[in-house]
C-alpha cells in the first residue's frame, strides 16, 4: 500500500486552556475521500484548520507524506500548502475580484511566470470544470450561494492540488445542488486521484462518497471511531457512533 497522504499523530487541539479534542491519531490514505464527522461544536472544522496551517496543534504532530508539517520551516510548509486546495464553508471568495481573478490569485502567487492570458485560460478551464463557464467576469455578489461554493471549489482546484480540504460542502445548499457537488467531488477524485478531506455531518453525503471516516465525540472529547461509514453505522461498538449515523435511531439499541 502506498504511503498515507496525511498522518495525524496524537494531536490535541485546544483554544488556550480549553481542550477541544485530545489524542487524535489516524492516517488518511491517498485518493481517499475521508470524512471528519461529529456533532455540532465538536471541533471538526478546527481539525481541518490544523491541516491547512491556520492553527497549530497544542500537542502532537501532523505529517504530509513523510514531512512533519508541525515542525517544518516556513519554506517547507509553503511547499506543502501549495499542494492543498481549500474550499471554505461560505466559499470565501474575495469580494472585490471577479471569479476569474479569484481563481487566478493562487496561480499568480505560486506560478508568477505565467502570462495573464495563460492564467485566464486556466481560470476558464477550472470554472468550466465546476459548471461555471461564462461566469468569469461576474463578481461573487452577483451569483447564488451554490455558485459561489462551486467557484470556491474552482479556486481550490486552481493549482491541481494533491489534497483537497472541504468544509461543510452541503451547508446552505439545496439537496440537488448538494448532490451535484458530491458527484463533482467523486469525479475529481476519480480523474485526478486527489485525496479529499471533508468536514460534514450530512449523512446522505457521508454514505454516498466517503471511503473512510473518523468520528469526533463531543462528550469524551476524542475520536471514537475510524473506518468506512457504512461499517461504522452497522457494526461500531460505540452506540454514540451508531446513533449519529442512524439519525438517532439505533436498531436494537438502548435508546
Amino acid at each position, binding site marked *: 500500500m502506498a504511503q498515507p497522504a496525511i498522518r495525524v499523530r496524537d494531536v490535541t487541539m485546544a483554544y488556550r486552556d480549553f481542550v477541544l479534542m485530545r489524542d487524535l491519531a489516524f492516517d488518511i490514505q491517498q485518493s481517499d475521500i475521508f470524512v471528519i464527522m461529529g456533532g455540532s461544536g465538536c471541533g471538526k472544522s478546527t481539525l481541518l*484548520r490544523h491541516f*491547512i*496551517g*491556520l492553527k497549530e496543534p497544542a500537542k502532537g504532530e501532523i505529517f504530509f507524506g513523510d514531512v512533519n508539517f508541525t515542525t517544518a520551516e516556513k519554506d517547507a510548509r*509553503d511547499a506543502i*500548502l*501549495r499542494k*492543498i486546495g*481549500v474550499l*471554505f*464553508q*461560505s466559499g*470565501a*471568495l*474575495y*469580494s*472585490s*475580484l471577479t471569479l476569474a481573478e479569484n481563481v487566478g*490569485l*493562487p496561480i*499568480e*502567487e*505560486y506560478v508568477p511566470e505565467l502570462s495573464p492570458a495563460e492564467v485566464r485560460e486556466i481560470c476558464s478551464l477550472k470554472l468550466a470544470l465546476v459548471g461555471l463557464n461564462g461566469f468569469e467576469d461576474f463578481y461573487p455578489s452577483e451569483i447564488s450561494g451554490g455558485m459561489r461554493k462551486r467557484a*470556491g471549489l474552482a*479556486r481550490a482546484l*486552481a493549482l491541481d492540488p494533491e489534497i483537497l480540504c472541504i468544509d461543510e460542502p452541503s451547508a446552505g445548499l439545496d439537496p440537488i445542488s448538494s448532490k451535484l457537488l458530491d458527484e463533482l467531488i467523486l469525479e475529481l477524485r476519480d480523474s485526478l486521484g486527489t485525496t479529499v478531506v471533508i468536514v460534514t455531518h450530512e449523512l446522505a453525503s457521508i454514505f454516498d462518497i466517503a471511503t473512510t471516516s473518523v468520528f469526533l465525540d463531543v462528550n469524551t472529547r476524542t475520536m471514537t471511531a475510524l473506518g468506512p461509514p457504512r461499517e461504522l453505522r452497522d457494526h461500531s461498538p460505540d452506540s454514540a457512533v451508531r446513533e449519529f449515523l442512524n439519525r438517532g435511531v439505533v436498531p436494537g439499541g438502548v435508546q
Partner: protein
Amino acid sequence: MAQLSYDATELGDWDSALLTFLVRVTSRAAEHGVEENRAGLPEGVRGLLRLSEAVSTKDDAGRGSSEKRFVTRVGLTTIEVTHGAHDMLVYLGEVAVALLRFVTGRASYRRADFWLAIQQAGVEAAPIVALVSFLMGVILAFVGAIQLQQFGAAIYVADLVGIAMVRDISALMTGIVMAGRSGAAYAAEIGSMQVNEEIDALTTIGVSPIEFLVLPRILALILMMPLLTIVSDAVSILGGMLVGVTMLDQSFIAYYLQTAGAVSLAHLIPGLIKGTVYGAIVGMAGCLRGMQSGRSSLAVGAAATSAVVTSIVLIIAAAGVFSVMSYRLGI
C-alpha cells in the same frame, strides 16, 4: 406523603405563561418532597413539560455568575493588556516587513486595489475634509477677532488662522476626519472579510493578508494625507478670509498679504509631516482592528468602533509629542 394534583377542566386557552408557572410549581414541589401528579393537565402541557425536562441542565453549561474579585480582575486585565501590546508589536513588525517588500518590489498586492484605496482616501475624502476645514477657519477667525479687536489688531486674525491651521489644526482635523471615514471603513471591510473566511483563504493560497489587504490601504493614506492637509490649509484660510472680509471690514488684498507674510515653509512642512504620520496611524489602527476582528457581525461593529477610538487616541498622543518636540527644538 403529600401529593400535588391538578384540575384543568375549566382551563381554556393556555400559553407559555402556564408552563413557566408549572415549572416553578414543580421545582417547589420537588424542594418540599411533594409528589406531583400531572394527570389533570391537558396532554399538550404534559408533553411540553416532558420535553423541557428531557435533558437535565448541563453542569458546566451555566456561566459562573459569581463576581470576580478585584485582584483577579486586575490580573486578568493586565494579561489582556500585555497580550494586546504584544499583538500590536507583532503587527507593526509585519507591516514593516511588508513595506520593505513593497519598496524592493516583491510585495504581492493588486495595483487596482491600491488605486481604489487612493481614490477612496483621496478624492472622495476631499469634500468632507474641505467642509470641516472651512468651518474650522471660520470659527478660529471669530474666536480670534473677539480678542484681537479689543486691541485694534483685528488684521492679526489672518496670522492666527494661517499659522494655527497650517502648523497643527489642519493635520489634526484631517486625521480625525479620516479616522472616522477611512479608519472605520478599513476595520469594517477587513473585519467582514475575517467573518467570511476570506483572510483564511488568502493565507492558505499563500498570499500574505498584510501585503494584500493592509499594505495598499496604509500606503494610500500615507500618500493622500499630506495632499488632504494642503487642501485643508487652503480652505481654512479661505474660511478665515471670509470672516475677515465680511465681518471685520478688512480688504481681500490686506488679508491675503498678511497671511502670506505670516505663513512660511517652516509652518507648512511640520504640518505636512504631522498629516503623514496621522495618516499612517489611521491606516494601521484601522487595519489592525479589522484583522483582530472576531467572526460575528457584532465583532465587526466593535472593530470599527475600536479602530476610530484607537486612531483618535493615538493621533492626539502624537500631536502632543509633536508639540513638545517643536517647543524643545524651537521650530
